[in-house]
């Protein structure tokens, strides 16, 4: 598929998401009533508030104004303090990126070696042990695991701060919480991809040529196992973002995850819209990259598209 067609599709996806979120947020209750108590207000005050924050008129009229603003790069203002919603979100983004980046590193550093090892020992006691830990890792809820860590490492042992930000120490527990949970899932994916790749005839044939075990693994098994792994990448990125929302709340981490939880509770619609749009944008870009990555990893992919 041509790049232009892909981009067009990405823009359409983004537009659909923006529209859906806009409508859904406005159908789930009058945002003004959630902020102002109608018993204490005159109708005039309510109306002027509506006008101020763009909640005036029918949903269709509001939508037209909103979409025009968005196209001009104006994403609305935070209902809390009147600051630009986009700037507010961007301020909190680095903290989340830090968290997700570090968690992804943990996931890869644990998942690839352990998954590979389990695949090579498939059916053994070690394999069973790894699989049990993996099940434990993704069965335990994030918030519970996080609280458990706080209880042991902060409250009992006083090694780490319970939450907040400011030093590398603050990062440790949130990253372990997300990283270990995602590593548990990723290990399984790596194991099954490696198991399939190990069974390939070309691996036997590489061994028959007398290549060393390490070389067979790195140059023949890995490249083939990466192909299915690439396709689950967007899934993992999406999972990390939603895990961040919970974990940031548990550890009082000042990222966009916590921001969206708070903003939904406050019905701070502009902020919610910006964050969802941002997440959607990240997912769309990830998918685009994976498509390109896939074609690069597997030269057969473009040939298959031709048939």
């Amino acid at each position: 598929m041509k790049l232009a067609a892909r981009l067009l599709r990405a823009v359409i996806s983004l537009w659909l998401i923006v529209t859906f979120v806009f409508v859904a947020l406005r159908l789930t209750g009058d945002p003004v009533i959630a902020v102002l108590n109608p018993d204490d207000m005159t109708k005039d005050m309510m109306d002027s508030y509506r006008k101020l924050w763009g909640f005036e008129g029918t949903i269709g009229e509001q939508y037209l104004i909103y979409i025009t603003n968005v196209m001009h790069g104006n994403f609305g203002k935070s209902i809390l303090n009147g600051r630009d919603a986009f700037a507010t979100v961007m301020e909190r983004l680095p903290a989340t990126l830090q968290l997700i980046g570090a968690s992804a590193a943990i996931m890869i550093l644990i998942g690839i070696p352990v998954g590979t090892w389990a695949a090579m020992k498939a059916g053994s006691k070690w394999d069973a042990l790894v699989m049990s830990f993996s099940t434990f890792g993704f069965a335990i809820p994030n918030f519970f695991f996080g609280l458990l860590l706080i209880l042991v490492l902060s409250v009992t042992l006083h090694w780490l701060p319970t939450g907040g930000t400011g030093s590398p120490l603050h990062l440790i527990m949130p990253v372990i919480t997300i990283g270990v949970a995602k590593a548990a899932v990723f290990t399984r994916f790596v194991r099954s991809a490696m198991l399939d790749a190990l069974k390939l005839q070309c691996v036997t044939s590489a061994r028959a040529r007398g290549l060393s075990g390490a070389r067979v693994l790195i140059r023949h098994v890995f490249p083939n196992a990466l192909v299915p792994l690439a396709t689950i990448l967007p899934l993992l990125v999406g999972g990390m973002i939603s895990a961040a929302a919970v974990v940031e709340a548990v550890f009082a981490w000042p990222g966009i995850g916590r921001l969206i939880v708070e903003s939904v509770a406050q019905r701070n619609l502009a902020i919610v819209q910006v964050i969802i749009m941002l997440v959607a944008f990240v997912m769309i870009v990830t998918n685009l990259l994976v498509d390109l990555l896939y074609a690069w990893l597997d030269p057969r992919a473009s040939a298959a598209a031709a048939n």
Partner: protein
Amino acid sequence: MLAPSVTHESPLCIVDRLTVEVIDGLARKTVVEDVSFQINKGEYFALVGESGSGKSVTCHTLMNLLPFPAATYGRIVVDGQKVLSLTPSELRRFRQKSVGMVFQDPMAALNPVRTIGSQIFETLRMHHPKAGRDELRELALAALRSVHIAQPEARLNAYPHQLSGGLNQRVMIAFALLGNPPLLIADEPTTALDMSVQAEILDLMDEMRAQRGLAVLMVTHDLGIVGDRATHIAVMKSGKIVERGITREVLAAPKQEYTKALFEAAAVNHELKERPDHAYGAACLSFDKVSKRFRTSGGKSKGEVVIAADEVSFTVKQGEIVALVGESGSGKTTAAKMAMGLVRPDSGKITVNAAREIETQDVGVQIVFQHPKDSLDPLMKVSAQLHEVLKVHGEKDEAKRAAQISATLRDVGLSESILDRRPSFLSGGEAQRVVIARALLLKPRLLIADEPLSAVDVCLQKQILDCFKALRDKRGIAILLITHDLRIVFDIADRVVVMKSGHVVEDVGVAHFGDEARDAYTKKLIRAIPGRKLSDLNDAAPPAGPRSVSGAVA
């Protein structure tokens, strides 16, 4: 226990009382039992047997390359090394220098995500650790040239999927010979290739053998392939060698019933009889100038037009078996799909039962696919699958359905005991007959069989062919048989239609097909029949190649 050797050199490969047990948890299953043979330098040793006979396991054990956990007993000495007791580094060296291996599916045996060049350099670097870039490149090109690959420079940058099966197998042979080993193991090297390419690959292996004094261990289920090439032969069945000796002697007077059955399956039927015209009824399927083009939808070749059928005309009459022959890509499967009403032709007319033009699928036309196990639902018992067909077509009375099913099973030579089984408990031959029975339940007048025998063992093929013959002779069913195997054609077809690149290049009664094929392509196909020289061999013509009796044990 081994016969005294007449040569003074010690044999290149000795397999002595080899037993292999597959370990599955606590259970052990013997797949190779007490197998002994030896191969001398320069010999061409064929290990023949049907799938599951243990021949592949034997040759994988020769390189200590079994893909599953197994226990091995006995002694294997290849090129002076005790294979089963080598350390990992000795084993690597042994695989590099002493034995080369060629596999069944060359596309799968080459890494699909890396270029041919990167894989060949990787192997060459092992053999020439000090060689520079340019030197490696020269070595790689020389290796590709030695197996007659044209434009070797371009092939280095190609991925396996961009080359044909035949070219990939040449690349594999080049790979296997990079270390100049004295022994080449070939595990069904032509089974996955088109027929006209098979002979080329076998010829190439002969050439390599003559050039380098290479010994070849050929593993195959097809006696036809080895009859005119191998110096020695061993027949395996259920993990044991049941017969062995010098090829010529074994072929002339097989001692075992099993060997005879293998021969018969591989031999070409030379007693072709033309059946009288009144044996056939009215036209049952006719193609009248049918054309079909496909346009490829993406990638580099986007928009290219593929001609699957170009003014194709032929007729199948009631009670006639017509063989549709051609290589993959010749359009024969598209023709079958059009006859089924699954693909609509661009132009031309297809008539079924001399009546109406095909609009959609017609119950009067049924199809039998290549892989019987894939066309049966693995979770359903045979009886449920057969009942389902009748239920869908409105037969509500269970007793009537059961009666019809048992009658049909009798027609295909199956007992009713298979009704309670699931497909995994059926042999390949049984499964294919169940598929045929399922097709017959709707009382079709035309049966289309798409490569119905290629997934079935040689010994079982005869049962299925007999079943087709009986259907034709007793029930007057017309059969359109799609195949690439001309031996099957000679065995049961009444008429042969040869297709190439969407054209019908030959349409002739089978009696006149062999002797005076008019089309050049048909001639090439007939020349490529592997078993063609079997009869010459039986006339005691000595096989080519070095001769010694040491491989034969009385």
